[in-house]
């Protein structure tokens, strides 16, 4: 496993995961407390990342914002994988059958609605919020994993070792689990990494346009939206939440790359 991606990736992920967990019991300042006389303070010993336009401590808001982002993205990717991968495997195992057609057309239908459109519809009906953001991103992840799994599994079903397993009398479900899944795990992890990153980014984007987590829960996306008109006046208000998103996503991607090497010995040998 490449230490150069594993170490920084793990450290970054642990840093933000730790910040999110610690924020449940402690933050330097109360994120709901407004302190107008101290608004837009530059970073200092008292306020490490400065204060925002309402005098709130940006460091504390980033800590609390971390749990919103991580939770939304994690659950959304989980929904996508848990539903999408079995659907993709089933579709590939029964290629051309009614099941395949039904699964793929349903996927096409969900896939036709980008996450933001799903979020817009859900918002229009049920109102904005973190749970609706999870549902929107999660629903969008399902066809992504299903299509990827089906495509990758299809290319394996014509390979000799699968034919051998069929001749040996193994059933399609067993072949899918024992032979297809381990061979496409690499692809799924890479895609999972991309989707997790996209989940963090999508949550931030939804919050930025007001469709994600609602006040008073701090969210990185909303912090950026509120800082938009202040970029030239007080750049730190926009820089720190942006860097928080960038570093979390970067950490997850580096960790994902390291895991991919670990899961795929062939890749590890090639790289070394």
């Amino acid at each position, binding site marked *: 496993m490449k230490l150069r991606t594993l170490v920084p990736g793990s450290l970054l992920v642990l840093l933000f995961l730790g910040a999110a967990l610690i924020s449940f019991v402690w933050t330097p300042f109360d994120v709901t407390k407004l302190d107008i006389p101290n608004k837009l303070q530059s970073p200092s010993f008292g306020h490490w990342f400065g204060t925002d336009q309402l005098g709130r401590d940006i460091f504390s808001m980033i800590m609390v914002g971390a749990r919103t982002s991580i939770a939304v993205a994690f659950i959304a990717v989980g929904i996508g994988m848990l539903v999408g991968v079995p659907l993709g495997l089933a579709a590939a195992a029964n290629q051309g059958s009614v099941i395949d057609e039904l699964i793929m*057309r349903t996927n096409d239908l969900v896939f036709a609605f980008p996450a933001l*459109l799903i979020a*817009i519809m859900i918002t229009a009906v049920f109102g904005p919020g973190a749970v609706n953001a999870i549902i929107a991103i999660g629903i969008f992840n399902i066809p992504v994993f299903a299509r990827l799994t089906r495509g990758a599994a299809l290319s394996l079903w014509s390979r000799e070792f699968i034919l051998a397993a069929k001749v040996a009398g193994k059933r399609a479900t067993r072949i899918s689990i024992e032979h297809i899944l381990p061979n496409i795990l690499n692809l799924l992890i890479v895609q999972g990494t991309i989707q997790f990153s996209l989940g963090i980014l999508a949550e931030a984007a939804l919050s930025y*346009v007001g469709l994600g987590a609602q006040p008073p829960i701090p969210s990185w*996306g909303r912090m950026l939206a509120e800082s938009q008109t202040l970029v*030239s006046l007080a750049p730190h208000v*926009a820089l720190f939440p942006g860097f928080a998103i960038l570093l979390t996503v970067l950490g997850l991607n580096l960790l994902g790359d390291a895991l991919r090497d670990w899961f795929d010995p062939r890749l590890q040998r090639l790289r070394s």
Partner: protein
Amino acid sequence: MLRYLLKRLTSLLLTLLVASVVLFVTIEIVPGDPASFMLGINAQPETLEALRSELGLDKSKPQRYWQWLTGMLQGDFGTSYTYKTPVAEMIGDRMWISLPLTLFALLLSTLIAFPAGIYAASRRGRIGDATVTGMTQLGVAIPNFWFAMLLVSFFAIKLRWFSSGGFVGWDQGLFAGLKSLLLPAIALALPQAAILTRVMRSSLLDVLSEDYMRTARAKGMSKRSAIWRHGLRNAMIPVLTILGLQFSFLLAGAIIIEKVFYLPGLGLLVFQSIAQRDLIVVESVVMLLVFAVVMVTFLVDLAYAWVDPRLRARS
């Protein structure tokens, strides 16, 4: 190929039909009466009834769905509850910003990703590969609306090379229009270009280790020729998948980026319409975007069949 095309076309139409039903039913769940919303709480019952009849709200749900569907097919998306203007006209005006922006970003993304991915794969393990991979790590991680804010801050506010927001209009000329869209398109394209570069690189690396590539090299073909003649075509399937996915990301992303740059595109229209509960506009814009995404998926499927005849034969 014709049979494959017909089969895909049928499924495309079915997807659109079901999507329209899902969309109509979802919007119908929303509580509240548009006519009451338009006239306010002091409206007389007779006036309210007349408006409901004028908007077709007194008809049954299946009738209204049919009216909406057949209307759309003829380019009639109904009348905005808030602005009392045809929705098709409102969408038409805004589309001339959102669509060029999406296509501009897709073009930029592809132009960056293809050469970068091929370059990195052909120099695996060397400094060039590490540099491209490092850049893509950063590119994938950057939130595009934050990147857009930084672009505005640097190129528009500090250097004053571009306007910080708004759209000059195509009547000012193609160059002026594209200049207005350049910063938004860069902000939209870069993160997607980074993803596409990674996929291109990893897909090409997978192909490079295949037996037929070794055979091609053993026959005396140079590495470059082997990549161009055999590698690229086989590496294209995952790349096309991601390219197809990217269109919907870019289209949805454009809605967000339009907010950063105050571009009067479809995104702004949707958010305004949600705030004003002008649901007929939301419904129509979402259906139009769904149509665009489904069409692109269809074209990607056709491209699959063209790139890999095995998939066509299996279907």
